[in-house]
């Protein structure tokens, strides 16, 4: 894709040389982790294509949309209500932040002991590596963990940052705050786009987002079959791509893929005979962070679910579609997002219940808790998660790591030993 897109990347201000080597590494990584798999679904070709054009055709689409006056809004957290963005005919993209490139640049303005996700989004901006970031007319931050909250202050020197306040508890006062924030965001998006959000366009946007959630729910149901019909890596990739692909097209393509998957399940075909079923739980894994799933799936296990923001935390709950007035719809949005069980909340008992329920429903033999180094909220909760799972008779392994590759062998030993233990 390189030659045809280079002029566009240059115009967007990317560092062409550094960007070229990033794409090269990404391509190699993708080849090793994805294309080497046997017996994949035909439907994954679409994902392969989207990924190979991650900085190419999708960027061109966004670029063209902007030329026609549409706005692009970038986000880092599943708390940002997408319905509002799409209702105003703007485009929302998740800024992925799953690669190590740019860390050096980031460490010039952030402490070294900051989680890899934060370093990555700051680093990508400073090192001029991400065309999505460059295209954004608005980047939405939120007051979730302290690391992100403070990083947005720094980040706002480099990008048009808008920060939403996310409550830390879920009492009625917190709901009131959250509602005020959703309304303030609505106003900001209206100001940005020059379009007003109406009952009509919001209803459509709610439908659009729910359809995307439903297809991912369908995927999750199908992948839980015995034997497992799709690798955890492929399922994770689908979830990751949902954050920046065109939602309408994505939903259609994934329904096609699910049809194929359904057929495969009917035929009783699996991808990993004899593999131990495990579930991942914890911090989000953004593109191209496939490190742990790859280690797990080369150690005699198969991942059948992700309790994570790039996973069920983002798709479990739908926005109620019963509202008829704008007010009712906004309320439905407020309520839906407040159900998110992120570790930044206190207390966060519902997450523990969700994990245990999910582990049971997926019939897994163990859970691997994934924490990014220096992520305090999830590290703290991992102890509680372990206890809740232990009480339910489900073993858990806690892994803490970052994006670097130096600990892969060590992690492999841990994961293999866990698989031996639960087999």
């Amino acid at each position, binding site marked *: 894709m390189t030659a045809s897109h280079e002029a566009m990347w240059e115009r967007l201000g990317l560092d062409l040389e550094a960007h070229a080597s990033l794409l090269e590494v990404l391509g190699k990584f993708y080849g090793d982790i994805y294309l080497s798999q046997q017996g994949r679904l035909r439907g994954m070709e679409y994902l392969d294509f989207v990924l190979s054009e991650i900085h190419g055709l999708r960027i061109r689409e966004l670029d063209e949309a902007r030329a026609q006056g549409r706005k692009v809004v970038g986000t880092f957290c599943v708390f940002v209500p997408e319905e509002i963005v799409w209702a105003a005919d703007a485009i929302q993209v998740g800024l992925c932040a799953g690669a190590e490139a740019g860390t050096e640049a980031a460490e010039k303005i952030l402490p070294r002991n900051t989680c890899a996700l934060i370093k990555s989004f700051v680093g990508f901006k400073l090192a001029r590596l991400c065309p999505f970031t460059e295209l954004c007319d608005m980047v939405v931050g939120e007051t979730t963990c302290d690391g992100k909250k403070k990083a947005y202050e720094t980040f706002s020197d480099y990008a048009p940052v808008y920060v939403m306040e996310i409550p830390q508890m879920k009492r009625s006062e917190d709901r009131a705050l959250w509602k005020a924030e959703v309304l303030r965001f609505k106003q900001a998006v209206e100001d940005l786009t020059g379009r007003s959000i109406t009952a009509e366009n919001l209803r459509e946007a709610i439908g659009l987002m729910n359809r995307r959630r439903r297809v991912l729910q369908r995927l999750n149901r199908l992948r839980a079959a015995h034997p497992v019909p799709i690798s955890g890596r492929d399922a994770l990739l689908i979830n990751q791509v949902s954050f920046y692909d065109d939602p309408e097209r994505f939903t259609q393509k994934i329904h096609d893929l699910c049809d194929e998957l359904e057929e495969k399940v009917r035929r009783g075909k699996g991808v990993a005979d004899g593999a131990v079923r495990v579930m991942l739980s914890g911090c989000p894994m953004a593109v191209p962070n496939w490190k742990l799933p790859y280690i797990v799936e080369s150690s005699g296990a198969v991942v059948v679910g992700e309790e994570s923001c790039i996973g069920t935390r983002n798709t479990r709950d739908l926005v109620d579609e019963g509202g008829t007035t704008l007010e009712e719809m906004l309320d439905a949005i407020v309520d839906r997002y407040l159900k998110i069980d992120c570790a930044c909340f206190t207390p966060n008992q519902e997450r523990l219940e969700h994990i245990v329920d999910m582990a049971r429903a997926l019939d897994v033999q163990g859970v691997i808790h994934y924490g990014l180094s220096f992520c305090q909220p999830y590290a703290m909760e991992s102890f509680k998660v372990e206890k809740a799972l232990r009480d339910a008779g489900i073993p858990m392994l806690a892994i803490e790591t970052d994006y670097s590759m130096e600990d892969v062998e*060590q992690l492999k030993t*841990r994961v293999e*030993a866990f698989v031996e*233990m639960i087999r």
Partner: protein
Amino acid sequence: MAVIGIDIGSRSIERVVWDQATGAWTWDKVPTTFDPLTQCRKLLADADGCPVVATGYGRALVAEHFAELSVRTITEIQAYARGVHHLVPEARTVVDIGGQDTKVIALSPQGAVVKFEMNDRCAAGTGKFLEFMATSLQIPLDSFGDFALEADKQVAINSMCTVFAESEATSLMARGERPQNIAMALHRAIVRRTLAMLRRVGGESPVVFAGGVAHNRCVCRLLSEALGGDVIVPPDPDVLGALGAALAGAGP
């Protein structure tokens, strides 16, 4: 028929040959060197036909390079659990301090792994830590533990990080502290680290101490003092991984 277990560690490679008919076994040990593959070749030269089970950080290397043999791999955790359970069936916890890893494993009464802890990527609290410190105090590694046992006073080294602990040791030396006392403080640091891992897995007794560092009398003594005397150190504590691997090849 015989079964071979081979444990490729960072410092040494151990091989156990287990006779399935009689249950008798013998072991060998060679240094890992910079060319572990050649070392493995020597140990596997007469392996023809026997099942081989490889463990240790070089396990994949063996599986990859000896395709002509039937090689299976298991982790050190599984291997030590099996080896220990065979020699000390009542053991409920295994502490294995090797060249670059420290592991603490909780066993069920039947000898199955129920929980384990491993050190993070850094060398703090592993054999490497002692090796590094012995070198910096210019004491041969083999007698480092005995040297530390000559301490006559308790001094503190607080850091568990190899680099920081060394600078603490250097500044104690600069203040004229006896090297024996410094050595003791370094041994205490490694034991503190191990105890923290023990607590995380529950640390039920009896505790078996295995791995290369179990040859170090000072670590043995400190560990058993901390645990109220309840530490079993089997003879040849560093071959239990290879033994466990061989047993895995023989048994289910």
